[in-house]
């Protein structure tokens, strides 16, 4: 008798920024089939940008595409618009953009590391990592005036300068991270339990990563050295000469599993610290905006015609904004956003196949999507036509149980 269950996960939860449905076919504990349904919600962000807002208003709308990558999206959008209008961004603004983008990467990767620890039941590590993350949040608040929605981008530059004192504060913050990096490294990369839960779990081979167009840390962890900052440098990255991080830089081997994704992200935190320090030391002086008069800028944008593509390496991978402007019209003629998680969702299929239900949280979290989609799961027993619900708590409990089991057996 076939004992296969189908478990749909998702699609909706109020806290989701990427609502998605997962259908898992399980035989006992093992996952034997995975199906993914995207496009579960439509927020109309692109529509508003094309119908209601002018380009300046759309910067703040782009910021709200994602709560965590809210530098990458406006960055990408203004980049695209600057390409249409041929606005030359002053060098100092380029460096400030780089610094803010890297601060965002540090905060996003630490947030992710905490979530990953939480998913496998290590809440102490979760709190510890997030406590470390507070420091970068304070820096962001100090530099931009707000913790989350930074509102620092403007077409043709940035809206706030980094003062002498600000630079000193950032340097101090970066020293703090360098001092504490070995602790994070110790916790995540040398802890036997984390290794047991993540080594050879959720494997994405290099071939699959290339075939499914994975981006960002997910692709890099599978040994694909791709990074927009390296391949098509923007802002100040060309001066820095960045090199994409793959796990073999750390221990000489590529598994493409969850553990490798942890390695890549933690090394990237270190790399970001390095970039920020470098950018502060080499920051040119000068103006931070190409066109200070916003009214003139608005008229210029109204006259502009053409199309532009912005590409930015967000913490989760490559982000793309496509923008088309028509002369005489203030809203975009078309605006298309491709967020990185879109590419990183399909790789879930090879990652989850052959795994266990207890691994779903950590494997899905390892690509760094929004995890609230696991909040409600309905299990359909196809043989008995019976439905019952698995809540996020149940899944989480299963995950913790597995960690405990492994800890017991490992000792």
């Amino acid at each position, binding site marked *: 008798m076939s004992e296969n269950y189908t478990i749909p996960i998702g699609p909706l939860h109020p806290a989701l920024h990427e609502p998605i449905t997962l259908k898992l076919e399980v035989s006992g504990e093992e996952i034997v089939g995975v199906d993914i349904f995207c496009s579960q919600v439509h927020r109309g962000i692109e529509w508003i940008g094309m119908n209601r807002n*002018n380009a300046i208003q759309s*910067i703040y*709308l782009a910021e709200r595409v994602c709560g965590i990558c809210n530098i990458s999206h406006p960055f990408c959008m203004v980049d695209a618009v600057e390409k249409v209008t041929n606005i030359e961004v002053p060098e100092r603004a380029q460096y400030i953009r780089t610094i803010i983008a890297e601060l965002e990467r540090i905060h996003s990767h630490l947030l992710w590391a905490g979530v990953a620890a939480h998913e496998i039941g290590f809440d102490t590590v979760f709190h510890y990592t997030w406590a470390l993350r507070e420091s970068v949040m304070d820096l962001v*608040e100090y530099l931009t005036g707000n913790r989350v929605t930074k*509102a620092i981008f403007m077409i043709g530059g940035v809206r706030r300068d980094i003062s002498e004192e600000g630079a000193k504060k950032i340097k101090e913050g970066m020293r703090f991270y360098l001092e504490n990096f070995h602790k994070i490294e110790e916790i995540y990369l040398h802890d036997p339990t984390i290794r047991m839960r993540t080594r050879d779990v959720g494997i994405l081979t290099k071939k699959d990563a290339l075939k499914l167009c994975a981006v960002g840390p997910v692709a890099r962890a599978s040994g694909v050295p791709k990074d927009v900052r390296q391949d098509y440098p923007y802002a100040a990255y060309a001066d820095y000469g960045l090199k994409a991080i793959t796990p073999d830089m750390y221990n000489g081997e590529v598994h493409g599993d969850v553990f490798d994704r942890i390695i890549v992200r933690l090394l990237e935190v270190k790399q970001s610290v390095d970039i920020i320090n470098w950018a502060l030391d080499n920051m040119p002086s000068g103006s931070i905006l190409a066109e200070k008069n916003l*009214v003139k800028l608005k008229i210029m944008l109204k006259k502009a015609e053409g199309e532009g593509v912005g590409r930015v390496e967000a913490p989760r991978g490559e982000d793309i904004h496509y923008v088309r402007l028509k002369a005489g019209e203030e809203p975009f003629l078309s605006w298309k956003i491709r967020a990185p998680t879109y590419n990183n969702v399909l790789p879930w299929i090879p990652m989850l196949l052959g795994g266990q239900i207890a691994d779903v949280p950590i494997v899905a979290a390892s690509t760094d999507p929004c995890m609230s989609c696991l909040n409600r799961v309905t299990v359909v027993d196809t043989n008995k036509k019976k439905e019952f619900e698995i809540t996020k708590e149940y899944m989480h409990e299963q995950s913790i149980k597995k960690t405990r089991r492994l800890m017991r057996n490992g000792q």
Partner: protein
Amino acid sequence: MMMHEVWKLLFKKPFTNKFPAKYAPKNVHSYLRRVKSGKVKLVPPIPPPPNFRGKIQYDIDSCVGCGLCAQVCPSKAIEIVRDKKWIIMHCKEGATLAAPLKIKIYVSRCVFCAQCVDVCPRKCLHMSDEFLLANEDKLSRDLIIPGP
């Protein structure tokens, strides 16, 4: 390693600032009344950083009603209205009595981007430090600038 950290944390002062009180009061309104009468003391919040973007402030007298702020506001929080005060306006046909254009800001819609502050030619808008803005009534007196 982790155990060591946990031990250290056990003896440290908690990182969290217990604003506004050490334990959440059962009834916020009665708590606030007691604060007002001086019976209990509020735990102060962590001061916001310089250049923090809080509740917007508007100097109605220097506003010329150009409407630029409403044009760039991403959340359409600014409405252009006629002033309640009538003034004598001098135009080609001679002096007439008219109400000049002013703005009205709905703070409940504001996303605190400060774009209007940047664009205003008369510098009559600026962001304050005030951040305690939660209210059940989105059109309450405190959340409309200038007041009704």
